[in-house]
Structure formats: structure tokens, C-alpha cells
């Protein structure tokens, strides 16, 4: 491995790319060296994902040159890049859910593997090489996000990849799963494989990246060895301004009970009951799949759940569907932005206005000028970066899309705002703005239920935290006074309920 670090495996020179109304990349140049973990950070809309999609052949670049492993790459397809040794592991993983682990790794190459026996044997070898124990005959749909990633990495290895791009791989991982990923990354690196690691989480960047590139608004702002960046410098370069704190100060105006939920029972949830107070941010902490999302979906009427009791302001309410939830003063930012939140072919304005159609309807007719006002107001107040409100929302970055969903509900002004992973895949600056919004809602006498896989976020934002494990509430904590590890123990089902 003595050549590691000297040889440039990937050279990107002056690459530009525009979408209708948006300039996504503006003459970007990056060199990635062999056997290095190259971190790429930047706010949403900085152009990271666009660049990676150009590398893998999903998009075509407008101008510039890309040299990978000594060969100039002009037009490529995801299939060609894979075979050339450039693999990309997307945030939303690209596996066939209905097929087995082994079949996924060698998808379309069963013949080369001499049938299914060879396929599974070789898949076993690859999985073992990264210390993944999952059976090769298991269906991918039954795997956790972390294991799916292992399968993706094994697939990349099966192509003798020289460069693996990981697009925010840690988004849905628990702490333990994350340390496993880090171990694998170190192992890949030792084999001389380069890794481009895209992330919002600065801890990870400082933890194991060798070189860091900061991008902002389609430009490369700086590329330096990790050791030469300070945390503050990195944040400042990412957002183009100084951020004092990662979290706003906790709001402290918790009042009387606003909502009471009693006895949610489903196949997955067991007797889940809780109260929510005015001015409170209530955090739900638990592993992915523990029942956090199911709980709020039941409250919001998103799933067919019956038999539980909900009262708001002391009055019992019936919430059997999201419409009734909305009318009762609830709002929901769903877990999966693309699948559950956005109507992708529609405009920014129409996505913002869709929960409040009644507000610009007179005698059944839409008043377009009022709708325009609603769109413009929230684009402005939330600082949504978009050329105009008529642009299709699919052209916006993840953070700006999320703000549109926030704006959608701000128009309604719900008194109880449920936020399921509201900052998932969102950059530091936009995160802070969403934290401020939560605080504002609480301080105006509303309440927020916050679900997040990022423990520091829940602990720093919440006034009170409930831990959920295996469909049961296992504890209630004051995150200001109880240490994080005690809360984590309860979330892992290790006892310690207070």
C-alpha cells in the first residue's frame, strides 16, 4: 500500500451542470487519491449529489473533464461505471427488495457465476470479507438499512471497484451500525480502495476522512487534509457565514396538558400512552423500527388504528384519517420526504399550498392569486432557495424541499406539530432554521413531537423525552438532567425506566 495517497484515481476538472432554472455545478475540480477516504461536505443544494450522479452516469455533465483510473470519461451509464470500477451507494439504496441477498449482489451476472450455487458461494465470500453475517438467501426486504448497505458494499466489491462513493450512508444508522461501517471503511481503505464519503455529520468527517472538500452553491470552496480544518472553519465554509451554536436554547414555557393519547395497541405497539403539554417539545427516542413512527402515524390517523383514545385540550377527538387530524390542529412532516411528503411533478407553490387548499377556495373555485401569496410568503419566510415558485419541486435540493413541507403546515398553523426525522439529509444551516421553527411553535403555545435518529438533536431540542423499545414506552426523561447514556439504555431496552 505504499502507493496509497500518491496516485490520483479520479480527477474532476471544471465540471459544470445546469438544470432548467438552476445552476447546480459551477466549474468544480476535485482530485481523489488512491486509498484515501475523501469527505465531501456541503449544505443541501451545494451540488454534491449532482456531482456524484454525473460520476456514476445518471446525469450528463455540460462541460469539463473527468479522468477515472487513467481514462477520460465522457458519456457513461450507471452500468458502465460499475464495470469500470466506480460504484455508488445511494442514500436511498438501490436493491431489489423481492430478491435475495446473493441475487442482488450478482444481479444480471448469474451466468458468470455459474448459476445460483456459484452466486451464493461468491456472495458469501464477499460478505464475509467485510464481516457481514447475513444469510445470502434472505430477502432484501427483510433486512435493516445497515445490512442493506453491507449488501451494496459487497456488490461494489464484486465489481473490483477502485472507488466507492457513499452518499450520506449514516443517515439511518444507529451508533453501533455506524461503528461497523467505519470499520469496513478502514478495511476498504487498507485494500487501496478510495472512498468518497458524503455527509452532513461533521463528527464523521473528523472521525475518519483523510481529505475534506467543502462545496457550496455549486462551487468547491476548499479542499484540505482533515487535520488542517478546524470544526468552526469547516462549518463557516459550508454555510458561508458563522454559526454560533448548533442548537437554539431550549424553550421553557411548558404549560398545561394539550393532548392526551391513551392505549394505542397494534401488532407492533403495545399500550402506548402519553401526554403532550403546551409549549413543549417532546422527543421520541428509539431504534429505527422500535415503533416511533408507528406511534405518531397512529395519532395522526395515517394508519388504520382503532381503539385508542385521543383528547386535545381536554376534549375527546376522533382521528381516523389525516384530514381529521388536520382539522383537530395536528400537522405532520413525514419520515420519507420523497415518498410521503412531496408531489414531485408539481410546482413549489402547489406543494406548499396543498394542505391549505380550503384557504384559497371560494365556492369551490381556487383563487390563484391567494395561492400565489401563500407560496411566496413561505418561500420568503423560510428562505427557500428556488428561482421562482412555479419551478417543479423535484429541481430543489433536499433541504429546500423539506422547508416547503414545513411551509405547507405553517400555513395551517397546527397547534401540535409532529416531525418525523425533520432534519434527515439536511445541512447544518437549514437544520438550525428548522430548530428555530420548532421553538417558535412551542413558544406560541403549540407543541412539537420530535422523532430523530440523531440523539444529540432530540436531547438538545426536547423538554421531555420518551424512549420506545419494541413497541413499548420504556421510559420518560428530562434530557437536561439525565445523562444521554441512561436514556440510550432505555431506548435499547436495557431497563432504567424512571
Amino acid at each position, binding site marked *: 500500500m505504499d502507493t496509497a495517497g500518491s496516485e490520483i484515481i479520479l480527477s474532476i476538472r471544471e465540471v459544470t451542470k445546469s438544470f432548467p432554472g438552476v445552476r447546480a455545478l459551477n466549474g468544480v475540480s476535485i482530485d481523489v487519491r488512491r486509498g484515501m477516504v475523501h469527505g465531501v461536505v456541503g449544505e443541501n443544494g451545494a451540488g454534491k449529489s449532482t456531482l456524484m*450522479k454525473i460520476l456514476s452516469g*445518471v446525469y450528463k455533465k455540460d462541460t469539463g473533464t473527468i479522468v477515472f483510473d487513467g481514462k477520460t470519461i465522457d458519456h457513461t451509464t*450507471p452500468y458502465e461505471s460499475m464495470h469500470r470500477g466506480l460504484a455508488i451507494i445511494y442514500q436511498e439504496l438501490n436493491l431489489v427488495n423481492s430478491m435475495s441477498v446473493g441475487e442482488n449482489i450478482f444481479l444480471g451476472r448469474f451466468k458468470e457465476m455459474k448459476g445460483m450455487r456459484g452466486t451464493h458461494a461468491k456472495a458469501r465470500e464477499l460478505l464475509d470479507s467485510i464481516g457481514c453475517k447475513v444469510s445470502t438467501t434472505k430477502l432484501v426486504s427483510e433486512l435493516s438499512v445497515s445490512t442493506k448497505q453491507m449488501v451494496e458494499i459487497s456488490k461494489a466489491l464484486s465489481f473490483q471497484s477502485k472507488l466507492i462513493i457513499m452518499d450520506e450512508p449514516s443517515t439511518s444508522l444507529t451508533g453501533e451500525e455506524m461503528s461497523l461501517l467505519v470499520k469496513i471503511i478502514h478495511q476498504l481503505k487498507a485494500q487501496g480502495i478510495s472512498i468518497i464519503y458524503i455527509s452532513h455529520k461533521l463528527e464523521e468527517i473528523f472521525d475518519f476522512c483523510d481529505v475534506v472538500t467543502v462545496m457550496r452553491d455549486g462551487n468547491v470552496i476548499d479542499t484540505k487534509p482533515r487535520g488542517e480544518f478546524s470544526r468552526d472553519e469547516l462549518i463557516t465554509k459550508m454555510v458561508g457565514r458563522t454559526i454560533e451554536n448548533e442548537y437554539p436554547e431550549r424553550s421553557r414555557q411548558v404549560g398545561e396538558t394539550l393532548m392526551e393519547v391513551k392505549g394505542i395497541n397494534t401488532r407492533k405497539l403495545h399500550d402506548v400512552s402519553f401526554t403532550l403539554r403546551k409549549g413543549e417539545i417532546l422527543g421520541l427516542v428509539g431504534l429505527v423500527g422500535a415503533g416511533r413512527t408507528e406511534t405518531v402515524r397512529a395519532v*395522526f390517523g*395515517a394508519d388504520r388504528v382503532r381503539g385508542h383514545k385521543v383528547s386535545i385540550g381536554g376534549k375527546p377527538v376522533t382521528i381516523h*384519517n*389525516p*384530514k381529521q*387530524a*388536520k*382539522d383537530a390542529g395536528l400537522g*405532520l412532516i*413525514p419520515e420519507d420526504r420523497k*415518498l*410521503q*411528503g*412531496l*408531489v*414531485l*411533478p*408539481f410546482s413549489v407553490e*402547489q406543494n406548499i399550498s*396543498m*394542505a391549505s*387548499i*380550503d384557504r384559497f*377556495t371560494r365556492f*369551490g*373555485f*381556487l383563487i390563484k392569486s391567494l395561492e400565489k401569496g401563500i407560496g411566496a410568503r413561505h418561500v420568503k419566510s423560510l428562505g427557500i432557495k428556488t428561482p421562482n415558485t412555479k419551478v417543479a419541486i*423535484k429541481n430543489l435540493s433536499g433541504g429546500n424541499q423539506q422547508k416547503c413541507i414545513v411551509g*405547507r403546515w405553517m400555513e395551517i398553523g397546527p397547534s401540535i406539530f409532529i416531525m418525523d426525522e425533520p432534519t434527515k439529509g439536511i445541512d447544518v444551516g437549514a437544520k438550525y432554521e428548522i430548530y428555530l421553527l420548532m421553538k417558535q411553535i412551542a413558544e406560541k403555545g403549540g407543541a412539537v413531537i420530535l422523532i430523530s435518529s440523531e440523539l444529540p438533536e432530540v436531547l438538545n431540542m426536547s423538554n421531555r423525552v420518551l424512549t420506545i423499545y419494541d413497541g413499548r414506552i420504556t421510559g420518560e426523561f428530562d434530557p437536561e438532567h439525565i445523562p444521554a447514556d441512561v436514556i440510550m439504555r432505555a431506548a435499547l431496552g436495557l431497563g432504567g425506566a424512571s
Partner: protein
Amino acid sequence: MNKVGFILKDYLVLLMILGLALVTAIIQPKFISPANLNNIMRQFGPLILVALGMTFVIVGGFIDLSVAGTINLVAVVTITLIDPLGQVGALVAGLVIGSICGAINAGLILTSGATTQAEALFITFGMSTVYSSLALIYSGGSTFHFWDLKEMPNMFEAIGAGSVGPLSVSFVIFLGALALLWIFHTKMAAGRAISLTGGNKTAARLSGVPIERSIVLIYTIAGFMAALGAIVLFSRVTTASPVIGAGFETNAILAVVVGGTTLKGGKGSVLRTVMGVLLVILLNNCLNLLGVSSYMQWAARGAILVFAIWLDNRKEVQGNQL
């Protein structure tokens, strides 16, 4: 995708219509004779009405194969009700029956929990055979003619063959339906809700958009428009048979998709459907005039449908992530 590409995609149907008309007119001057233009206008009638209704179903993210069955049922029931109920009574009854057929489809989709286009396809396919067999049972398999009625139904005759100035009555009915449906779709809250439902059912539902209402509306509209189509159809041929609607479902879907409304739901327009129907009818008419065999005509129609879907998918691939 570049700008030229977008323009091409958006106006391709229009260009094809103009090109087709021009070529045919040059090769076969009979094409622009008043008799032929009148013929085109009358052919336009039943299909466009059915296709306009179908547009809402497809924009709403679903599909409706039951319209052929609905047409069969409405045609035979309406014509036999003319004697007992009078013409207006029969007309209203026919439209109500069509709407009920549509509402039943919606009810089945909602209660079965079907959320995909494929599920809707099979449910409405099943219902099409049910409605068709009801039509056969009701009629005993026989065909009804205007001249068998106690007196000639002059209102239906007018719908089938009458004119208002230079326009046929069926064309006027089409214009009225088009205007109302266009306003409903683009200007009214319920129309927006339908588009949102088609664009992303889950997101629409979680935002409190009443998607159940959208589903009931789209199928009821499709049923109503199929009934209207059935009435115009049997009025034109002065005869109603229990198999009169065969093939209408596929032609209507063909016209909607060729017009540029995406099968993925959400985006589309009744105006596009008008272009789609125009293209389908012109194509038939041209091929007829040019003496192309009907076997070949089927192939041409199929090819156009596949081309339209291909074009729609290409646009997705280029403008979006894979």
C-alpha cells in the same frame, strides 16, 4: 432535457395532427371535402366524451376499463326507457345509471384498499364484464331500433344527426362538456385534489387532501361521460345493441395517453385529450381514405400508443433521477 426537447414533447401531438392532415390532403383531396370533415366531426362525438372522462381517472392515478360495459348497459337501458319514461326521463335515467356504475367502481376500489393502477385495472376489467352481462341479460341479447319505438324520438335523433349552425349537435355537446370539465379540473379545488391524488396519493393523504373523494369523483365522472358517450353513440346509429361499446375503453385510454397525459398520474389535461382523440380519428380517417387495410390500421394505432408511452418515459428518465 433541453428546451427544444420540451417544446417538441409538448406540441408533438399537434405537429403530428397537422402533418397527418397535410399529407393526407395532398395525397387524397377528398380529405378536405365537406362530407368528410362532417364525418370526422361526428366520429369525434362518442369517443371524445368517453376519453374526457377517462382523462380524470388517469390524472387521478388510476385507470378505468369498465367504460365499455357501462356504454353497453346505458345504451340498451336508455333506449328501452324512452317509451315508458319519455325522452328526457330516459336521458336522465341513462346518465344516472352511468354515474352509478362509476360510483360502484370507486366503492369497490376504496373498500378493497386498492391503491395501484394495476389493481384498479383488474377491478374495473371485472366490472366491465359485469356491466356488459347485465346489458345482455336486460336486453335478452337483442338490438333495439328507433323505428321499433311507439314514436320516433326526435330529441335523440337531433343528438345523433342534428346541427346547430355549422356544428353538429354532438359537437356542441362535446364543446360544453370540454368547457365544464376544463374549468372543473383547472379552476376548482376538487379538480386540484384529483391532480394531487394522482401525483402522490400518500403525500396528498398525509396533507389532508380527501383522496377518497377524488377517487369517487374520477370514477363517477368517467361513468357519467361514458353514459353521455353511449347516448350520443346510439343516437347517431339509431340503434342500441348490448355490445355497442366494445373497444371504447382501449380507444379512450389510447387517446388520453397519445394526447400526452402521463399514465403515472398527476399531470395531464382534457385539452391534451382532445388532441389525442383528434389524432386517433384523423389517423383512422386518413388510413381509410388512403385505402390501408383495417388490419394495418390496428397496428398503426398500437404503435402510436407504444410511442406515446415511450416518449413519456423518456422524459422522466432525462429530467429525473433514475
